[in-house]
C-alpha cells in the first residue's frame, strides 16, 4: 500500500481491538455473501396485518396520494405543459419544445420518462 494512503488511514483496518467478533470471522472470505432482505421484504415479514390498524407502523404512517390535481410540467423545460405528445408520451410546453422532443433519440426520451417513473421497463 502506498505511504500516502497509509498515512491518510483511508483503509479501514480489518481487525478492531474493541470488537468481540471481527468482520473476517463473521463474513469469512470465499463464503457466499449474505443476502440482506430489502425494505419490501422486511415489511412483508413484519406481518402488520396481524396488529390493530390504529397502531402506528412503518406502512400505515405513509402519506396518502395527494388530493390536489396533478401538476403537469414540461418534461424538458419545466414550464407548465398544456400538451402531450402521444408518440413519445412526453409532456411539452410549446412548439419549440415539441421540435426538441421529436428530435430526441429514443434513449433520451426514455430517460426523461424515467424521471417521473413513466419509462417503459422491459423485464
Amino acid at each position, binding site marked *: 500500500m502506498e505511504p500516502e494512503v497509509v498515512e*491518510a488511514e483511508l483503509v*479501514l483496518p480489518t481487525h478492531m*481491538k*474493541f470488537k468481540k467478533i471481527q468482520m473476517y470471522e463473521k463474513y469469512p472470505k470465499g463464503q457466499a455473501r449474505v443476502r440482506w432482505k430489502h*425494505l419490501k421484504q422486511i415489511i412483508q415479514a413484519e406481518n402488520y396485518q396481524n396488529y390493530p390498524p390504529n397502531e*402506528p407502523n*412503518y406502512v400505515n*404512517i*405513509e402519506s396518502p396520494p395527494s388530493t390536489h390535481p396533478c401538476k403537469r410540467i414540461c418534461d424538458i423545460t419545466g414550464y407548465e405543459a398544456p400538451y402531450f405528445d402521444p408518440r413519445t408520451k412526453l409532456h411539452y410546453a410549446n412548439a419549440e419544445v415539441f421540435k426538441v422532443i421529436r428530435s430526441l433519440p429514443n434513449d433520451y426520451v426514455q430517460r426523461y420518462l424515467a*424521471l417521473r417513473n413513466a419509462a417503459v421497463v422491459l423485464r
Partner: protein
Amino acid sequence: MPFISKIQRQSDYSSFSSNHPIVIDNGGSYFRIGWAGESDPRVIFRNIIQRPRHKITGETITVVGDHNPALLKYFDCTRSGPRSAFDGNVVYQFEIMEYILDFGFDRLGANQSQINHPVLITECACNPVQSRSKIAELLFESYGVPSVAFGVDAAFSYKYNQQFGICSKDGLAICSGFNTSHVIPFLNGEPVYEACCRTNVGGYHVTDYLKQLLSLKYPHHMSKLTWEKVEDLKMEHCYIAPDYASEVRLFQKGDKKAEEKTRCWQLPWTPTPVEEAPSEEEIARKAALKEKQGQRLREMAEAKRFNRINDLENEIRDLDMLLQRLRHVAENDIPSILGKTVYTSKQDVESALVKATQSLRKAKGEPVESVEKMDPSSTEKYNLINVPDEMLTPDQLKQKRKQLFIKSTSEARQQKKQKQVEEELERERQKKLEEERRLENPELYLEELRAKHRDLSEKVEQRKKLKTNGGHSNGNHNGSGGGVGRGERLNSSQRERMRLLTTAAFDRGKGEDTFGTKDEDWQLYKLMSRDNDDDDYDKPDPDEAELARISSRLQEIDPTFIFKSEAGSSSAAEAPRFRPLTKEDFQIILGVERFRCPEILFNPNLIGIEQAGLDEMAGISIRRLEASKGVKERITNSILLTGGSCLFPGMSERLETGIRMIRPCGTPIKIVKASDPILDAWRGASAYAAAMQFPHQTFSRMDYYEKGEDWLRSYQLRYTI
C-alpha cells in the same frame, strides 16, 4: 460546502467513564457520533462505504465515508460505487452498517476490548422491528455494548428546540431528510406517531433529479456532474419558489427577473488557439510555389512531346528509305530485304508509314482528318458479303460472318457520328435563335428563363422530397441510420408496398381463397419485391438535365443569379460541426432547475411518487390527530422545520401559504426553522442521553434476549424525562 467531514481520531476516549453514553445519529446521508452532553458530535462522515480493489495487489479494501478522492487513484473503483446501508430510511444492509460503526467507534478513539458505554442511536419513525433488532444485536454481540436506546431524530430535534423555546410542547415537526420527509405532531412534548405521516421524498431525490436533468441537458459534460458536485450545486443554488406556476412563467417569458435568477457554472475551459488567417505574403508565396510546380510539369510534358516527335520523324525517315529501296529492287529481292525488318510485305510497310505520319500530326497538334478514308479496297474487304452462302467453303463462311459484323459496326458508328453532328447543328441553331430572342428583348428573355428555372427546380425538389419523404421535414434524424425509425413517414413507394403487403396479409373476402387462379395475381409479388424500390434512382432525370442547362445559361447572362447546388446546402449543414468550442459551451446554466428540483418536496408526483407533498402532509397529520379543536389550532402555532432539506431558501414561506390554504381561515400559523436543522437531532439526542433518567430508557443485552421481539416492537422512548 456546508457539510464537512470530521474524521480525525479522538484521543480522549479513555477519559470517559464506562457509564458515559455514546450518541449516534445514524442519518441517511451523514453518520454522527459523539459523547452525551457535548454540544457537537466528535466525528461526522458520509454514511457510505466503498469497497474497491487495489490496482496492484488486487486486494479488496473498505473505505468508509468520503475521503480525499485523489487517494483513490490507487484503487479500481469502477466496479464498486459508494454503497449505503439504507433502503429508504431503514437500515437493511448490516454488513455495511458494521463497517460504518467500526469506523465511527475507531475514530472516536475506542481502544479497549469492547465498547463499554451505553449507546443512544437514532432510527426512523416506526422502524420495522427486524431492522431495530438487528442493530441491537450488532451492538450487543459485536461491540459488547452494555445497553442501547433507540430514538427518532426528528423528535430529538424538536425537543432540543423546545428547550430554547423555539417551539412549544404542542406542535408539529416537519422533518425533511435525505430519503424521506416526516411530519410528526407533538402533544405535551411527546411525539404522536399515530398521527404522523411520511412521504418518501427527500434530499436524495432532489439531488438525483437535478443530476439527471443536468446530464440530459448537457450530455457532453456528464462526467463533470458527479454526485458530490451536484449536491454542492443544489445547496448553493436551489430554492423553493413561492408559487411554481408564476415563477416558471417568468422564465418562460424570458423576463429580466428570470435572467437575474439564472445561475451559471463555468466549467474549466481553455480556449483553443485560434488559427490566424494566412497573410498576403504567405498567399503570394504559396501561389508562386504552385506556379513554379506547374511550370515544371509543363516543361516536362513539352520535353516528352518533343522526344516523341523526334522518334516519329526518325521512324518515318527510315520507312521512307525502306520503301524507296523496295521500289528500286526487283520483286524477288523484297523478302530478303524485309527479312531483316519486322515487316512482311510492302503493304505492311506502307500502312506503318501512314500510321506513323498520323501520330506525328497528332503529336504536333495538327488536326487529323477525321473522315475515314474510304478504302479503295472496301469492296474487296467485304467481297464475300454478296456471295450466297451455298457457294462458300466453311472457312469462307466464317470470313463472311466476320465481314458482316465489321461492316455493320462501322456503319452504325458512322450513323451515330452523323446524328451527333446533326444534333450539334440543331443545338447551335437553337442557341442562335435564343440569342436572337435575347438580343431582341433581353429583359423578357431573362424573365422567362428565370421562371422556367424556378418551375423546374420546384419540380425536381418535389420529386426528391417524395423519394425521401419526411426525413427532413420533421427534423427527426435519430441515429437509426437508413432504417425507418419510430413513427417515421415512409416514402411513396414504400407506402405503396406496405399497403400491398397489408392487403395481402389480411384475407380480403370471407369466401374461399382464389388467389393464384388468375395470372395477374402473381404480378403482386413483383410489385411487392424490394427490387423495384430504387430503380428510378439511377436513371438521369430529364428535368434535372434541363435544370442544369438553364442554370448554367442563367449563370452566363445573369449577374444576379446565385447558383445554389446541393453540395452547397449540405456543406452549410455540416458547418456547425466544425464550429470552434467557446466559453459558452462549457457553462452549465441553472435556470428553472433551481426551483424545479426542490419543488418535488411539495409535488412528489413530479418524479412519479404518488404521495402528498410537505404542505398537504401537515394537513393530513393534523387530521389524523385525535385531539380537540383547540389543540389542533394551537398546534399550527408551533411548526418546526428540521432536516437537511429544510435549508432551501423560501421553504418557510411556501409552507406557510400551503398550510394556510388547508387550515381554516384565521388559524394562527407560526413556522420556525430549527436552530440548526442538520445537527439539532444529534444535539437533542446528546442532551437527552446526558439526562439523569436516561439509563431507565435503555435496555440491556439481557432485556433484549429475555423480553423477545414483541417487546422490542413496542419499545418506545419517553422524550420528556
